[in-house]
């Protein structure tokens, strides 16, 4: 019995020939697109990339609802929502540039890797011409970088870190949401009025780009008031149990706890802080206070009773009484039966703003759509007069300082607006945060 042996060279040759044969058609297929995923048919595909699992899943679910609503309104279905109050009237309710909007969805899992894989799928397989979403700054930054490389527009969803439009900004990326710098500038004076200028703060910080950014901003503005920072402790994202981090606060001598947490992390850490009796404590002769710099109604609802009287800032709140907000709350409420969160609001705005910019530009080409957004001034989307600043692709608008309501009238009515900080007070020069936009990328034609 002799088995037929085949030499190494024969094998290599066969492999190479077979390989070349298969590879050839893929390499030489001409690509007839003027820019990445140029829509050729009667539809245009948008990619909604949100966390459906992980610490920010609640926000993600609400974001997706808002995107679906926005797609409906852009296609002329439903009651039109904020399109009726939006100052730009370019959108005609027949999709974008005459093409009907369809969308694909994906789960970012609140992880940078998964978010990029999901966004890549949308770009490479589904032909999405714009990616939007992200409920975590690290995923937003990762996906923004990817969109820049691939040559599609990225409309950031809920991302609050300075870096998104600071150190890590990209020409193809745009953010409607506010950032930690603005939160700090808005919260500072309110905290001074409420707690005085002689306080010792203890920070618990989610250990990633957003947490670092917010810790830095709050530290900067509270120290300007004369506060001291006792210590800043980093906690892993999605820790669940924060008791080991809260115990040292009790004996530290600090009299303010700043929770740089968001989503379920904030619900857990705040609930545990209250259970440990922090709010009933007296330290240095003052009532112990807790501050949650970035607030959302979803979180406040999750934390229930514990949020009463706790200060924070937010991008938008459903109880605002301007026409835009009222129209949005009405159409969101009709479709889903409850009011939208700030995450839903910013995502809805981003979808509308993108659609409007494409309509005004008359194309989906990133290098034409982007400039249509740069320096764009608009109103009627719930935040008052707003501007997309050209130098860093960041929206500037008034910031809301809110407080957990002492006597809520419904389970959604958990926050009250303490102060509307005008845009001028939170504005900063674009160079302050560093980074480089670079040129637009239309992708490989």
């Amino acid at each position, binding site marked *: 019995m002799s*088995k*037929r*042996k*085949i*030499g*190494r060279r024969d*094998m290599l040759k*066969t*492999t190479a020939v*077979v*390989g070349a044969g*298969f*590879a050839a058609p*893929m*390499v030489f297929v001409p690509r007839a697109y003027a820019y990445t995923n140029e829509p050729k048919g009667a539809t245009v595909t948008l990619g909604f990339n949100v966390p*459906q*699992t992980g610490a920010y*899943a609640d926000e993600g679910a609400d974001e997706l609802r808002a995107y679906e609503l926005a797609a409906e309104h852009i296609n002329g279905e439903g009651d039109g929502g904020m399109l009726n109050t939006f100052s730009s009237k370019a959108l005609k309710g027949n999709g974008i540039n005459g093409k009907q909007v369809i969308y*694909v*969805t*994906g*789960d970012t899992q609140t*992880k*940078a*890797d998964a978010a*990029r*894989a*999901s966004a*890549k*799928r949308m770009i*490479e*397989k589904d032909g999405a011409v714009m990616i939007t979403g992200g409920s975590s*700054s*690290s995923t937003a*930054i*990762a996906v923004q*970088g*990817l969109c*820049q*490389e691939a040559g599609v527009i990225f409309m950031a969803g809920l991302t609050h870190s300075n870096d998104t439009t600071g150190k*890590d900004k*990209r020409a193809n990326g745009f953010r409607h949401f506010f950032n930690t710098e603005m939160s700090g500038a808005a919260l500072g004076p309110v905290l001074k009025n409420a707690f005085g200028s002689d306080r010792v703060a203890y920070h618990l910080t989610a*250990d*990633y*780009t957003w947490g670092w950014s917010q810790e830095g901003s709050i530290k900067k503005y509270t120290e300007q008031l004369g506060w001291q920072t006792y210590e800043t402790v*980093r906690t*892993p*994202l999605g820790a669940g149990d924060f008791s080991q981090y809260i115990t040292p606060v009790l004996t530290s001598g600090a009299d303010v706890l700043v929770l740089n947490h968001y989503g379920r992390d904030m619900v857990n850490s705040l609930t545990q802080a209250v259970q440990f009796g922090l709010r009933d404590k007296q330290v240095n002769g003052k009532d112990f206070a807790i501050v949650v710099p970035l607030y959302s109604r979803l979180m406040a609802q999750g934390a229930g009773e514990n949020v009463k009287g706790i200060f924070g800032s937010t991008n938008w709140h459903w109880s605002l009484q301007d026409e835009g907000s009222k129209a949005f709350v009405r159409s969101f409420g009709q479709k889903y039966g409850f009011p939208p969160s700030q995450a839903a609001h910013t995502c809805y705005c981003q979808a509308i703003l993108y659609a409007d910019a494409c309509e005004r530009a008359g194309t989906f080409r990133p290098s034409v759509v982007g400039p249509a957004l740069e320096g764009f001034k608009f109103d009627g989307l719930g935040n008052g007069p707003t501007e997309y600043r050209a130098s860093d692709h960041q929206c500037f608008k008034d910031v809301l300082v809110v407080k957990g309501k002492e006597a809520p009238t419904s389970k959604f009515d958990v926050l009250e607006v303490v102060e509307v900080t005008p845009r001028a007070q939170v504005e900063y020069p674009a160079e302050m945060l560093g980074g*480089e936009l*670079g*040129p637009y*990328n239309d992708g*490989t034609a």
Partner: protein
Amino acid sequence: MRTLTLSRNDLILLAGYTLVVLGGPIIMAPLGAGYPDLLQKFVIFGIFAVGFNILFGLTGYLSFGHAAFLGIGSYTAVWSFKLLTMNPLPAIVLATLLGGLFAAVIGYICLRRTGIYFSILTLAFAQMSYNLAYSVLTPITNGETGLQLVQSDPRILDAAAGRDYGAVLPSSDLFGIPMNGYPGFYFCGVVSIVCFYLAIRIFRSPFGLMLRAIKSNQNRLNYTGLNTQPYALAAFVVSGMYAGLAGGLLAVVDPLAGAERMQWTASGEVVLMTILGGAGTLLGPVIGAGVIKYFENIFSAFNEGILMAAFDFLPEPIQHLMVNVTSLFVGEGWHLTLGALFMVIVIFLPGGLMEGFNRLSALVAGIVRGRRDGASARGA
């Protein structure tokens, strides 16, 4: 050169693997998986699982910490891009070497124990690496945000060659061929074919036989006066190198490295891949990796709109019912489907999908033979 030859069956296996990998874009298209990113994941995690199988499938040592080497490979590759050059070759060579180096250190310690104690030790090391990458070593790993390229990276070799990427963020390229999209997939595909070939050689070598002997009865080997530890360590290092290479390739096609790649769930994933496909078989781990990545990327993307369209032919109430039931298993519920599939396979096909294929082919062969026998009986 007798040592470099393959038996006919192995050659067919390798040729078949080559065909499937290089024809991937065409073969996978009907399944909705024929796009570069997922194809890249298929071959990269295929490499990871094949390497893991050299340890687990042959020696029986169940490592619960292989994702650590994957992560080390990724970080190494990204640093190679940042410091040296955007060419992927140094990146993957360094990633492989560093993966092997860490495997040698960790393996040397962990292999003093066997069975569950070995698994726990590797798990502990992987979790330590993850925590180091996540917080302690933030200057090297950039923590939770992940290590990314920036325009101002030095890239010494590129600078020496006078290569300037201008104002855009560079992406990796092999002498001018960009490493994203299909070219990136073919690059990874060719590497995976080489890895598969090496795995066949290891499986068929005397060294492979020794590893199998460790699996079947290590005590007996020890009693005969043979020190098994160097063999087990060598297997551990080889599989660590495979993992490092896979991690490096992940960074080649997408220059970003995050700590979550090292988390215990990622280590668990490669165990699932191997068992799902069939531990100890050559092709099984690759198939397992493909199935899991397919679920993760395709099933998770099904939303209610797609389901509504899929059940369009049914009357409306039934359509809604079907959508409500099936939506539990797709979209964010894809883990549930994967879990159910895993249970079914472990219970009914302990040898993984490969056992299923073998049984199926035996069945078909049996039927064919039965027919032939019947025919010849009639003819007689």
